[in-house]
């Protein structure tokens, strides 16, 4: 799998509901190259968020392999795997959710500072990143004192500031109005291209999905 940052092979995951096995991810195989962007689309409940959780080790598959930067993970949930996934999330994988990406007790800049600290980066360029994402003037405000769009920009600044190789974004503009969503998406793609990190974007927004290099439709997959 050389030349790929993320490789997923025959991934399977099912939930058990009322005694019935309900498959969520069914024999899924795909890969993402460094710097590439991939949109994961599908109807509600098709497993977009679950897939992103699997890709950063927050959930464990029933079967299959996930390889990140040539390091393979199966369905083992032993302490070593858990610790390794945590290290990858700290240093290589940036995760952005639809909302609540920031610690409410910390200012925007302190949130970025905390995230980069955990990533082991000490460049002290937090304000620069907030500036770059258009919320530099809000750096010292708290998350509940800025708009939803500004909070999402700060969350993106936080992720980019840690210099990740892979960004997993789960409906990052889902809670924003169209105009703000477009602005946030534009910032996301621009900086992603600039930094050269890969992006896996889960969305039900076809316009947003179209901005990505490739589209993976979970409704059709498997």
């Amino acid at each position, binding site marked *: 799998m050389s030349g790929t940052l993320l490789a997923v092979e025959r991934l399977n995951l099912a939930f058990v509901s009322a005694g019935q096995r309900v498959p969520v991810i069914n024999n899924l195989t795909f890969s993402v190259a460094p710097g590439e962007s991939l949109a994961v689309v599908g109807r509600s409940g098709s497993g977009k968020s679950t897939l992103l*959780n699997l890709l*950063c080790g*927050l959930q464990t598959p029933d079967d299959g392999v996930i390889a990140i930067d040539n390091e393979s993970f199966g369905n083992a949930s032993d302490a070593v795997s*858990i*610790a390794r996934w*945590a*290290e*990858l*999330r*700290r*240093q290589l994988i940036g*995760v952005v*959710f639809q*909302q*609540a*990406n920031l*610690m*409410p*007790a*910390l200012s925007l800049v*302190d949130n970025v*500072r*905390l*995230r980069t*600290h*955990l*990533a082991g980066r000490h460049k*002290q360029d937090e304000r620069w990143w907030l500036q770059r994402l258009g919320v530099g003037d809000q750096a010292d405000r708290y998350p509940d004192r800025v708009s939803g769009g500004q909070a999402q920009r700060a969350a993106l600044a936080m992720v980019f500031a840690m210099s990740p190789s892979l960004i997993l974004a789960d409906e990052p503009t889902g809670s924003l109005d169209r105009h703000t969503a477009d602005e946030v998406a534009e910032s996301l793609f621009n900086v992603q291209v600039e930094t050269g990190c890969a992006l896996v974007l889960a969305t039900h927004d076809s316009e947003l999905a179209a901005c990505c290099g490739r589209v993976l439709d979970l409704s059709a997959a498997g």
Partner: protein
Amino acid sequence: MLIRAFLSHYQRHPFQLAALMLMIVLATMLWTGVTVLTDQARSSLAQSEETVAARAHIVRTDGQPVGVEDFVRLRKTGVCVAPWLEVKRPAPEGQVIGVDPMSMACFGRSAPIQDAASLDGMPFMDIGDALRVSQEGYDSQLYLIAPRDDIELPQGYALRAFSLAPPTGELADSFLLNLDALSLLVLLITGLLIRSVYRLGLVQREASFELLYRFGVLPRRIRQLLVLELVVLTAVGVPPGLWLGASLAEALGTGFGQALGSLFDLTLYAESFGSLPWRAAVVMVALVLTVCLLEWVFPQPRQPAMVSAYARLGGGALLLAGALGVVLATELVWVFAGTALVFAGVGLLTPPLLAAVEERRSVRSGATASVADPLRRWRARELSVMFRQLALPVVALQFSIAAVLAVHALVTTFESTFEQWLGQRLAADFYIEVPQGGDSATAARRLNALEGLGTWHLVAHGKAQVRPEEAGTGADPLTADLMALTPITDLVSDWALLSSAERPWRELASGAVMVNEQLARRHDVEVGSPLELTIAGTRMRTNVVGIYADYGRPVAEVLLHADTLPAAFTPRSESFSVNKGELSRDVIHDRLADTWGAPDLQVRDNASIRELASQIFDQTFLLTRAISALTLVLAAVALLIMIWVFFTTRVWYFRLLGVWGLQGHQVRRQLRLLSVRLTLTITAAALPLGIWLTWVLVNRINPLAFGWSLPMDLYPVFWLELGLMAGAAGLLVAHLMRRQLERDANGERP
């Protein structure tokens, strides 16, 4: 359907409902326990006063105690008089009073007992039975009482207002005031706690109320449902609390009886707890409804008013005014008022102060970028938010810890001081009472002749009239107990005196006197003060050379050398305190028995007396200790609930730490650090308040209430113990949260 939607929050969070119920039950239990005990004390004291009210007793003008021959003489001259024999038994049996119903016939309606059925020993019994009880070794005192204080008496007799003991009304009132203040503190703390738990639930339900409003449900209807819900909760929670409180009061009743007995020489008359205390129920229902419904009358912003700038200013002013009041007050009630103001001020100041300290820590941890730890900064900021949002339970816990600290310091100091005092009072191995008609002087000579005997002294007890010369000749003399010693040996010369002249014991032998602290405080007597003493009709002038501690009884007492006593003095009782030295107890007993021609002497072993006295005083403060400990438990449970509920609302952010790459054990560590620091900080904040409260109890309330003071001792080991308990509570919360984090692996986004 609407009610179901309305209650859906509790379906989802049954623990919150259980917590609120638990708070109501515990608070009712505590309040009921305290009020039942206070009411019982009040009615017992009232009964005591009623028993002795509006009567007089007859004394001999020559100062000698009255006896049977006086009774006969008075009855022969047509005076209505009846014997009244008090036998002082300790609790739980308590004091009994022997009366003769036949001789009380002339008392008419003012007779303390109206029929023979009342002679059941609670407290009255037939005088013959009481005499038998007194012969079991209890102190007794015979009075001749008269129905009125305006009757004519033959020469040689005088009427005195009848009081069973020195004036105890003020002391008893002070004791009840202490209990009332403790009750109010308990009510304040429980009110704060119930309000905080209820309010937290309400804040979390705001969104669902908003949704109901959007669906067309009028706010008025929502409020009606909230009131209904609260009424149901109160109706379900208060009755078990009442029952538990009544049981608690019953369990503590014995100790309380001993407290009254030992502190005030008053008997806690037997009284049934009877039915459930409905008055306490009404207060509790009113409290719950008031503190909870206050929300609708004065809706509060999410950030409690306690952290506003005005509140801080007001808090500072209250603190200052209260502290000044406590220092300058000369009456107990004002000391309590000042203390209440200080508590209010501290309550207003503590949450913003702690929040500011954490804020400062967070700034400091970010200022030095090279060593900056953003996680530390995050924790400091989280704590700052928590101190603001959990202001009410934080303050409640702080008050409870402070009360526990102060009560512990007071009680422990009292115990150790009392132990020391008992040690000096009961320094001899045993004491032997001189029997009726026994010649103590001959016995003393024979003891002197005994080879190998240790040190000993003879103590004669009686009464004296005391008037400080500075009070002027017009002032009423005070009746004090008299204790005359001879010879002065190391049984007394090692006493630790509160204050003394140089060589006080030598001065005593030269005719000076010592007084107990009670007398000194009540009559502003100091070392060097001149005193006028009247003993057996002989007036003498002397001066005070020492003041000694005398805990437990409010009676004034004068100590002098037996050589100072006038010849006319007849002691009420005499005893020898003896260290046996190389001899056995039997040898000494036999020598004295032979001297007096009485084969069976009353010998009391001081070690057993000491043990009995220690047991009584251990019980004395059981009540205050139990109440303060229960208040602490209540506050700790409330804080536990509040921190847990608060953390539950932050679960997502702990989950976010995991998303950012912290491993499970690292996230749990953050949780532990946060919760333990929170509980420890509250304990630390309670410390100055606890020390101050100790000072108030020891130096202000105790002297005003009881007439004696204690040294101001602090107990850092107990602080450490409380700190450990607080740390354990923090760890418990962290453990509960860990389970919550594991159960809800995906977390709930806010």
